[in-house]
């Protein structure tokens, strides 16, 4: 840590001479959760995003203080929602008189599912929120949860947390291909009155400051993410919505076909990074 600090200072001195670009980039910190689970926060870019060279978790772009919150479950504020979801998992709700546990026994059964999500089933992109609501409405005869509700995002986080540390490995060919292409097209579209694409900020400028924000690669391996600014778990689609809104654009809705395709595409840009759910961000 001390050496890094010293290097940081050297970088700073240099930067004065050669311009701001010297600040660019992720830090060198390593993420080991609870001193046990070693996380892959840096990996060779998958073939389909070769232009990135290396992919990085958003964790590598955050301040030491924010990073520390995620490194230990006792300090991770998202764990409250995850614990609540663990209780909800065995709570009977709805007319069928069932809980999630009635069919799935233990939530640990879901270990290994998160890295492959979203996936295409019967010609549709399926994301966790869809799976959970389909169980609730069809199998439990209970009410669907709202996309951004604490219940929904807590349950998504609980299920993804079972795979924490495993590398993301989303399928992009076969049935997934047309959706992946659609998501890719969105990623490079310059939306809104500011005419900015995801790639403008997260591919061309990651590592750079945009006003007070240190731009990451906009990876979603840590979602749902606890956002300190909003003081709650936020969904992937909520984040997409915020980023598109900030280009002075008319956004898409959470749960829309557009955002599902974009989720599939963005997830695939992180193939090789550890599932980090629930991550903590500023």
């Amino acid at each position: 840590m001390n050496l890094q600090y010293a290097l940081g200072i050297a970088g700073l001195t240099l930067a004065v001479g050669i311009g701001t670009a010297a600040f660019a980039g992720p830090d060198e910190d390593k993420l080991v959760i609870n001193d046990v689970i070693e996380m892959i926060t840096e990996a060779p870019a998958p073939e389909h995003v070769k232009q990135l060279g290396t992919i990085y978790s958003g964790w590598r772009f955050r301040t030491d203080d924010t990073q520390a919150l995620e490194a230990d479950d006792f300090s991770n504020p998202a764990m409250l929602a995850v614990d609540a979801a663990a209780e909800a998992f065995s709570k009977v709700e709805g007319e069928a008189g069932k809980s999630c546990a009635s069919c799935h026994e233990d939530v640990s059964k879901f270990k290994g599912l998160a890295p492959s999500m979203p996936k295409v089933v019967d010609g549709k992109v399926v994301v966790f929120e869809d799976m959970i609501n389909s169980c609730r409405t069809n199998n439990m005869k209970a009410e669907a949860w709202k996309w951004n509700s604490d219940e929904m995002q807590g349950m998504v986080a609980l299920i993804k947390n079972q795979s924490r540390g495993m590398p993301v490995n989303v399928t992009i060919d076969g049935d997934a291909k047309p959706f992946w292409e659609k998501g890719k097209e969105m990623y490079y579209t310059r939306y809104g009155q500011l005419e900015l694409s995801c790639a403008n900020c997260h591919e061309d400028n990651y590592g750079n400051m945009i006003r007070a924000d240190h731009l990451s690669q906009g990876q979603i391996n840590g979602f749902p993410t606890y956002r300190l600014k909003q003081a709650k778990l936020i969904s992937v689609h909520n984040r997409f919505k915020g980023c598109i809104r900030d280009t002075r654009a008319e956004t898409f809705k959470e749960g829309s076909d557009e955002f599902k395709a974009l989720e599939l595409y963005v997830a695939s840009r992180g193939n090789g990074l550890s599932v980090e759910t629930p991550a903590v961000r500023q």
Partner: protein
Amino acid sequence: MKRATNVLAALSVCAASAAFAAPPAPGDVVYEDGAVAQSLTGAPGDPAAGKVLMNKGSGNCIACHAVSDLSELQFHGEIGPSLDGAADRWNEAQLRGIVANAKMTFPETMMPSFYKVDGFIRPGNAYTGKAPEGPLDPLLSAQQIEDVVAYLMTLKE
């Protein structure tokens, strides 16, 4: 008699400003190699007002650019080049063109077009995320463009 003179004076003011009465609509601005020779208001801008726009509102230039003259403000961006010495590198017409529509000078640039109202994909109603209710206003008015250009003209090294 006194009243008559006032009326005359008022008339002559109107006549004088009539030549520049309305700023050109964004679509009517003439760019030559990216530069815009004519002031959009027919008058010099106010550098002090321009300085404020560098930080606030729809200008917010320092979201992407560092400017040493504004070092009392926190958090300058690193997306575009530092604007120190901008007036040594560009003349007034070129700076006006860059601020009004930077894509005329740097095709594909990430810098937004501040005097442009159409040709966008899914434009919104400011930062609400909703569809606009009517025609869009440019990000900066003609007067604000001139104010920002006047400020940039003070950035000499």
